[in-house]
């Protein structure tokens, strides 16, 4: 049980990375006021993910829960009112970003719940399991990264930035028409 908890510990942070990447990609193709809003949301998600990974825990859980809930409500409103279509924000990637944000919100909620139940015994368990949990954490990190990449990659491809991506190895600026198959380059 402790190994599983250790393995899953980094997943909210990885989900925040996924949300940040997809939101940034959506911002690149968005119009009007949507673009700065998505840039701010994307940078905030990436920043939160980095800081939380560094801290080794869900940081500012109350504020995180409020902001994540507000973001989810805002995204639902943007899609339901037709604002997403008017500002060239694809609903598919937005849905993928919302999945990542739900993971972050859940982790913040669990962290808040845990604070009220946390005992000295749990802290002692964490210290005892320190070395063993490093392996579990590492395996969890690899599995989490694969899951995030599996959801983020098609979501990124469905954004305007993804659709206009240049085919493999192209550097001469002859970008394909939107919708043309993309390739890869470093």
């Amino acid at each position, binding site marked *: 049980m402790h190994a599983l908890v250790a393995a899953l510990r*980094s997943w909210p*942070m*990885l989900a925040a*990375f996924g949300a940040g*990447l997809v939101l*940034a*990609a959506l*911002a*690149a*193709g968005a119009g009007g006021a949507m673009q700065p809003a998505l840039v701010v949301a*994307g940078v905030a998600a*990436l920043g939160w993910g*980095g800081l939380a*990974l*560094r801290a*080794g825990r869900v940081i500012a859980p109350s504020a995180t829960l409020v902001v994540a809930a507000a973001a989810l409500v805002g995204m639902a409103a943007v899609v339901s009112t037709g604002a997403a279509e008017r500002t060239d924000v694809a609903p598919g990637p937005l849905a993928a970003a919302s999945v990542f944000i739900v993971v972050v919100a859940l982790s913040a909620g669990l962290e808040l719940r845990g604070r009220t139940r946390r005992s000295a015994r749990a802290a002692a368990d964490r210290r005892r399991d320190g070395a063993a949990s*490093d392996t579990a*954490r*590492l395996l969890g*990190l*690899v599995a*989490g*990264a*694969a899951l*995030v*990449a*599996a959801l*983020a*990659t*098609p979501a*990124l*491809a469905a*954004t*305007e*930035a*993804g659709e*206009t*991506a*240049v*085919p*493999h*190895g*192209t*550097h*001469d*600026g002859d*970008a394909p028409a939107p919708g043309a198959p*993309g*390739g*890869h*380059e*470093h």
Partner: protein
Amino acid sequence: MRNSPNRIVATIFGAVYLLVGLLGFAVTGGVGFIATEGGLLLGVFEVNPLHNVAHLLIGAALLIGGIVSATAAKAVNATVGAAYLLLGIVGFFLAGTAANILALNTADHFLHLASAIVLLGVALGFERSGRVATA
């Protein structure tokens, strides 16, 4: 080595990237250095010679960092991981321009994204200040 997640990840990823870079040259004979159509590595990953060189350089940096010390491994992991993610984000805003370096929805991009997250994650989340393994 076994006590340092950063060294383990840097060494494994470095060896894999080096291997991928070397194997890449086996399937890119006759392919232009930055050709738009490369050879298929393992039948899935499209590569060209430029791609192979990038894989070799990244693999060498990671492997050297992993062999030298935990501090070096952590630094290389963070640099390569952050560079990959930053390159992707900057690429979103360059799509459709001459400076576009982005292309998505391919098997290799999936692996690059996963690699970037693992490398950055292990660098930020393991062996934080004062806990870097020296063994």
